[in-house]
């Protein structure tokens, strides 16, 4: 029995059979490597630069200096004092006093307990090592010469810190209550907003999918409107509605809109469409047989709801929850406008970087912000991977049956939600047209004279359109081509799955964090890519990378619908794959390509967080103008610019719709029989 096996093992190993790489394979792998490299350079490297920045600290090093003190007559006896020893003797500074920011100074007179600025004692100070720095007043001394000063001048000596690395920044962060509180605030707001939004969006989606109420098309259209505006816009509307001069401020019973209330209401507005889309998809597919079974088992509608409807939609609900949570916790525009003194993580990054130029601390807050964002993202991925098909081939699609009472309730409910969304937009448009709220309510177009305000004027609007178009064209090409290579190339399994993983990463990285990471990476003079800093190119790159994942997934879904046989056929006909790609794949997937373009265009116009650290005076953007005009107190012009973004995006949507229809008729005719 054992003889044959011995025979086999004793046989010499045959040559490893390797399929030969065709030219096509090489082209496709090359393309994949190029796009993967793009993602590594625009995502991994900058994030690494940011991480290392968060560990870059400043410290006062007393050992870098030497001092001498004279007697009462101003005569030095030549004794050189080491400040480290002085500090050990006097205990003037504790170790915590030496951790510093780039801008910190340390006065030295504390080292001399009997110091008096009136005394005739003279002092000498010098840098004991090259690289040491101290100031007298604001004059820098960085050489190693002894400097003689009288007491009154010695009082003005300030030591400057040197760069080092360590966890000081994180220690500092977690021991500053004002900063650390933001973690709690952000989590609380994100959880509340998630619960409220998902609940509201669920019933809205339920009404649209499971009732026979009227005007479903209109409601669907309205529900998607918030996607077309920057997240700051609801904040501006809330100021006009519930601010101290607000139209409806009595509704708040004296509570202030500036703070958690405003942030939650605004968050519900701008995350609503995202939650609605996901839940609606989950509710759209359902098996009527389960409901028939419930009826025949005499289950009450309430019981049916909890045992059939909710379980079948649970993955949608969970996914919507994570998406909303992530959007709220990483959003920066809304809490900036309406948050008042209520600190959130994303605003802290902005305050540290723009307000204080404390880039190291900005990097620390970014690292802290990434943690919940990645956590929510990973959890969502995990839950989705558990999902199994609930819809089998034998399923019967559920058809809602009319129920006059329920339909009326749903219509009222949906109208209220619709009123909320339309109301917010209408208030902004109204505010933009009023001359001087609340003292002069006559209408005028004064608020559209953007050139007279800080924020870049009309140019920023045109820049935004340019950014939107460039992002749509370049982004769609890169992302769709990348998805094609991953989906349709042969072999190279490791590389392909690695690519899939990298392509998922941008979704987990908040826009602000990406932007800040870009400063560290691209604004480094040693980086050869430094030239794109401050140009339109870096804005396009940041937008494409930031919105990569959703576009990639859309493309992959569309490509999966195409059989791999196409590739085999083209190969057997000896046609290069690129020809197949341009002649067959792209035309067949054109609806998806158009969807990706409009997604990129709209988001490039509305995003604030991905570009707020990257625009330059020449490339100011409309969404940034909204932020800056609001910041300067020009709230009405900010609303006007916000509505310009809305109209532009709405127009782009309509063009997209017409194009899609026309394209569908021309290229998708084969689908119809």
């Amino acid at each position, binding site marked *: 029995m054992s003889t044959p096996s011995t025979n086999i093992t004793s046989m010499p190993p045959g040559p490893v059979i390797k399929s030969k790489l065709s030219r096509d394979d090489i082209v496709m792998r090359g393309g994949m490597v190029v796009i993967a490299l793009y993602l590594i350079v625009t995502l991994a490297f900058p994030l690494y630069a940011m991480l290392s920045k968060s560990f870059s600290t400043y410290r006062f090093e007393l050992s870098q200096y030497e001092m001498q003190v004279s007697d009462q007559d101003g005569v030095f006896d030549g004794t050189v004092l080491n400040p480290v020893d002085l500090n050990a003797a006097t205990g003037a500074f504790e170790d915590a006093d030496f951790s510093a920011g780039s801008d910190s*100074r340390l006065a030295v007179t504390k080292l001399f307990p009997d110091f008096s600025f009136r005394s005739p004692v003279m002092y000498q100070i010098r840098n004991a090592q090259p690289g040491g720095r101290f100031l007298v007043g604001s004059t820098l001394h960085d050489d190693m010469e002894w400097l003689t000063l009288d007491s009154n001048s010695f009082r003005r000596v300030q030591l400057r810190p040197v760069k080092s690395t360590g966890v000081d920044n994180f220690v500092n962060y977690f021991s500053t209550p004002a900063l650390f509180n933001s973690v709690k605030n952000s989590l609380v707001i994100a959880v509340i907003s998630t619960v409220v939004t998902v609940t509201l969006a669920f019933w809205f989606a339920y009404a649209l999918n499971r009732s026979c109420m009227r005007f479903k098309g209109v409601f669907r259209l309205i529900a998607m409107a918030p996607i077309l505006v920057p997240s700051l816009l609801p904040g501006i509307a809330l100021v006009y509605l519930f601010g101290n001069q607000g139209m409806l401020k009595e509704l708040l019973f004296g509570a202030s809109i500036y703070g958690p209330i405003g942030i939650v209401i605004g968050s519900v507005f701008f995350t609503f469409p995202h939650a609605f889309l996901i839940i609606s998809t989950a509710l759209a597919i359902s098996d009527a047989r389960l409901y028939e079974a419930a009826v025949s088992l005499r289950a009450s509608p309430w019981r049916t709801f909890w045992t059939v409807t909710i379980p079948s939609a649970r993955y949608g609900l969970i996914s919507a929850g994570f998406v909303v949570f992530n959007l709220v916790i990483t959003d920066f525009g809304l809490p900036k406008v309406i948050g008042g003194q209520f*600190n959130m993580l994303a605003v802290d990054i902005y*305050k540290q970087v723009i307000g204080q*130029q404390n880039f190291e601390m900005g990097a620390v807050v970014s690292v802290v912000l990434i943690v919940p964002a990645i956590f929510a993202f990973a959890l969502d991925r995990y839950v989705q991977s558990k999902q199994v098909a609930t819809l089998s081939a034998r399923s019967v699609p559920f058809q809602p049956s009319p129920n006059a009472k329920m339909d009326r309730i749903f219509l009222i409910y949906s109208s209220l939600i619709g009123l909320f969304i339309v109301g917010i937009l209408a208030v902004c448009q109204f505010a933009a047209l009023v001359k001087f709220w609340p003292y002069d309510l006559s209408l005028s177009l004064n608020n559209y004279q953007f050139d007279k305000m*800080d924020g870049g004027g009309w140019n920023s609007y045109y820049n935004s359109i340019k950014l939107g178009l460039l992002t749509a064209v370049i982004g769609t090409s890169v992302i769709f081509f990348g998805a094609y290579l991953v989906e349709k190339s042969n072999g190279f399994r490791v590389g392909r799955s690695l690519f899939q993983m990298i392509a998922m990463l941008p979704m987990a990285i908040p826009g602000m964090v990406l932007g800040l990471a870009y400063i560290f990476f691209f604004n480094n003079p040693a980086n050869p890519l430094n030239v794109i800093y401050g140009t339109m190119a870096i804005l396009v790159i940041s937008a494409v990378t930031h919105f990569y994942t959703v576009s990639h997934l859309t493309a992959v879904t569309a490509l999966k619908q195409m059989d791999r046989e196409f590739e085999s056929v083209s190969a057997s006909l000896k046609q290069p794959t690129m020809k197949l790609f341009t002649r067959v794949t792209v035309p067949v997937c054109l609806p998806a390509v158009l969807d990706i373009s409009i997604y990129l265009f709209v988001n490039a116009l509305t995003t604030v967080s991905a570009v707020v650290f990257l625009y330059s005076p020449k490339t100011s953007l409309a969404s940034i103008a909204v932020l800056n005009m609001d910041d300067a*107190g020009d*709230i009405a012009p900010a609303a006007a610019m916000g509505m310009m973004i809305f109209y532009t995006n709405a127009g782009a949507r309509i063009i997209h719709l017409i194009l899609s229809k026309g394209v569908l008729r021309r290229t998708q005719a084969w689908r119809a029989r």
Partner: protein
Amino acid sequence: MKRKVSTLTSLVAGALLATSVAAETELTVYTAVEAEDLARYAATFNEANPDIKINWVRDSTGIITAKLLAERDNPQADVVWGLAATSLLLLKSEGMLEAYAPMGVEKLDAKFVDGDNPPAWVGMDAWVASVCYNTVEAEKAGLTPPTSWQDLTDPQYAGHVIMPNPNSSGTGFLDVSSWLQIFGKDGGWEYMDALHNNIARYTHSGSKPCKLAAAGEIPIGISFAFRGAKSKAAGAPLEIIVPSEGVGWDMEATAIVAGTANLEAAQKLVDFTVTLGANEMYNTGYAVVAYPGVAKPVEHFPTNLLDKMIDNDFEFAANNRAEILKEWQSRYDGKSDPK
């Protein structure tokens, strides 16, 4: 045909000649001056110096300062024209400024010139803290107009005052550093503790409190006089109050960046910035300028402003900035957090 060629040659020659005659020096000038003023400033300068071309790089004070500091080892700017003196002090303490005494600097108010000789920077004009008081909303809330900083701590103003956050706004920092100078270190923090009880919220930018007061969103906004005058001119029911203890201020100033390749042109530009003509030019927006006797009153500007400006110790402000901001943050940031 031949004629055509010769015309062409002469045209080309003319063009070449023209460029060589103009032999323009180009200066890269960093500035935080309002965008609408820049063209006017450059035009006035070019009347006297047609051979020097200014290339502006403009952004807000904080961003321009950060940009300059980031380029410390490889400066891109030749001149800084119109940046807060506190920012220039930071640059000076990094050894980034080329000391130069411009022609006629002795005619300027000494307050506006760096103490060193030769000075590292020279001032242009001052922006001064003030309180914007909305008379309509204040009457609705039954408030009496405050006349001093101390008045603002009165409980009647609780929740009716907005000021900029010094951590993100230069104006906010100017207020805080002036209170620490007026009331002393302990007195200053005590004052801010009391004022904090009345503050509705802190804004990110320095002009927003006044614009919010102008819009009636809040009766009292601590901001700067220039902003208040502008809003008042736009028709807002504002009173600009100059508190009796004195008000903090900062100035826009000019300096040469050390290591510039165009030192001669840079000096010409700085010479120009201290002239009478230049100061008259600053006066269109700013009521207080460096050249004594130039300033004509600006519409809606409080008249006693100049007397109320404190003897600002810029060195104190610059050297204690990091510490003051840290202290401020630990005391007041996150106002709405439950206690």
